[in-house]
């Protein structure tokens, strides 16, 4: 037990004397939070709508007002023809358009179905889909109002919606996931990097300079050695977790709906996975660069296959199955759930249990391999 204390103390001394380490620990999370936090769009609001009202009647103005009075839409530039409307979208000057043709009120007055046209910017399907859905809801409401006023059974208003595909696509965040969704993900990322990457490198560094062999002729056991290597990075990871969470809550104003205990507890389970992976990577790497590369390789896969950028539901089926082997997927789901939905322990079990199983497997494998390679 005492030996573990000296191992941990030594590790902390080394960490804090290494400027690179200090930078990774303190600057990296801040950078990630701010780059990703600001690179992403806010939640849906201030969607620009351009309306072409060619009917210019009481009824048509009523419909246009229904849009402009909603909290979502703000007026975009005016248009003089339907072609103008499409043009505005292509030029990125507006996000959504509404075209009310000149037969709008006359169709309604003879009890015929009136048709309007809606076009959304398809540049990002998330925003387009959500804004379009909102527009259709307003149309439905207006149709309901008209029908109720005349005591008719069939709807009087119908909209034709089209999506205009413009070229631009965002590289880093194609779905323009909102910040509230992104920042909790970065919390996960920061914890993963600190615990997985640095542990692996710390073990390999000892191997490189030969101190690992020196430690193996002392009476300490390989389990004590693993404890001495993982405990410091576990402590650091918890520090990072707290730090990133505080930034998320205080700076980005993203409230945590769920319990902090669950966040701490599930992080502990997740750390078993990442610390184990770090040790495992160290057993297959001879140099720090190799260890870094190994961890990085799996990390990139883990991130891509976790739903961090790209929703798992939108992946091909085979990929979706693969994500079940990805511990990051589970922890991301728990942390997002905790922040956004306030999930409880029982809600988190479908993620927590497979994550714990993966942790046991990976850490167990790490211990076995570590024993084999160093002893």
């Amino acid at each position, binding site marked *: 037990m005492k030996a573990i204390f000296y191992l941990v*103390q030594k590790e902390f001394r080394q960490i804090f004397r*290494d400027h690179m380490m200090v930078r990774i620990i303190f600057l990296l999370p801040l950078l990630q939070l701010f780059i990703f936090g600001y690179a992403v769009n806010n939640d849906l609001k201030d969607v620009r709508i351009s309306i072409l009202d060619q009917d210019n009647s009481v009824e048509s103005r009523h419909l246009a007002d229904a849009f402009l009075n909603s909290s979502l839409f703000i007026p975009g530039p005016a248009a003089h023809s339907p072609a103008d409307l499409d043009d505005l979208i292509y030029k990125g000057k507006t996000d959504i358009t509404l075209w009310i043709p000149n037969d709008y009120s006359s169709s309604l007055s003879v009890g015929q179905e009136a048709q309007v046209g809606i076009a959304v910017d398809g540049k990002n399907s998330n925003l387009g889909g959500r804004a379009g859905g909102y527009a259709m809801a307003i149309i439905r409401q207006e149709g309901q109002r008209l029908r109720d006023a005349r005591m008719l059974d069939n709807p009087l208003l119908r909209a034709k919606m089209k999506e205009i595909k413009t070229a631009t696509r965002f590289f880093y965040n194609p779905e323009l996931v909102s910040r509230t969704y992104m920042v909790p993900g970065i919390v996960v990322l920061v914890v993963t990097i600190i615990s997985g990457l640095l542990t692996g490198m710390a073990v390999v560094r000892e191997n490189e*300079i*030969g*101190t690992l062999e020196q430690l193996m002729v002392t009476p*300490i056991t390989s389990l004590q050695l693993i404890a001495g290597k993982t405990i410091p990075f576990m402590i650091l990871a918890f520090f990072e977790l707290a730090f990133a969470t505080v930034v998320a809550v205080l700076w980005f104003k993203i409230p945590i709906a769920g319990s902090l205990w669950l966040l701490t507890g599930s992080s502990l389970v997740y750390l078993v996975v990442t610390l184990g992976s770090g040790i495992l990577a160290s057993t297959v790497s001879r140099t720090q660069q190799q260890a870094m590369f190994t961890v990085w390789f799996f990390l990139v896969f883990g991130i891509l296959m976790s739903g961090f950028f790209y929703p798992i539901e939108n992946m091909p089926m085979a990929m979706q199955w693969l994500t079940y082997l990805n511990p990051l997927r589970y922890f991301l789901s728990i942390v997002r759930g905790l922040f956004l939905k306030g999930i409880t322990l029982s809600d988190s079990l479908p993620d927590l249990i497979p994550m714990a199983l993966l942790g046991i497997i990976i850490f167990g494998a790490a211990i076995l391999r570590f024993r084999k390679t160093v002893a």
Partner: protein
Amino acid sequence: MNDNNGYAVRTDKLTRRFGSFTAVDAIDLAVKPGEIFGFLGANGAGKTTAIRMLCGLLAPTEGEAWVDGLPISSKAEEVKRHIGYMSQKFSLYNDLHVIENLEFYGGVYGLDKAEIRSRSTELLARVGLEDKGRTMTVDLSLGYKQRLALGCSVIHRPNILFLDEPTSGVDPIARRQFWDLIYELADQGTTVFVTTHYMDEAEYCSRVSIMVAGHIEAMGAPEELKTKHDVPDMQQLFITLVNR
């Protein structure tokens, strides 16, 4: 196994193969307590491999060895409490202070706090680093680093000390100083098992063995060996044996 109790180190046909290559070939050694035993051989002769087996870092392919009377095959963990080891690429933490290196190894060997304190200060003085306790280890000269490494490997007062080429790469004066430390330890009853390829250092040993390509070609006190092979010095003896 009683016959092993009298010896600090004894080996019986100790062998290590890497694939089809035999690095250490059935060597028989017997080192008496308190001896300075010189384990000589050219580069690649198998010295490090043999020492790593004796320290429990490497399992023998065949044969057995007893260190402080304990069989390494079954009591490797216990053996570790009886020995000190300074590896060929002697292993210090460059980013720790000199005193922190000593204290760390004291802690790892399970000494208690007061003991770590007193032992570190004592060893610091012994290896001539008393005014460099707070120096960053990386800033030490090679000679000082080697002496610090020696200090770290004896912090727990081992009965037997294994030194693998402890003086390689330093000037003759630093080497002489290092050997003075070895003598001091031996005087206090520590058995020293030291490898070297400097033949002048062989003269400082109570007994030596000379290893060539995995075999022990000669073993005995330096004077005895010189007489037996009719050579003026160890250098000559070594050349004779290698060319045989």
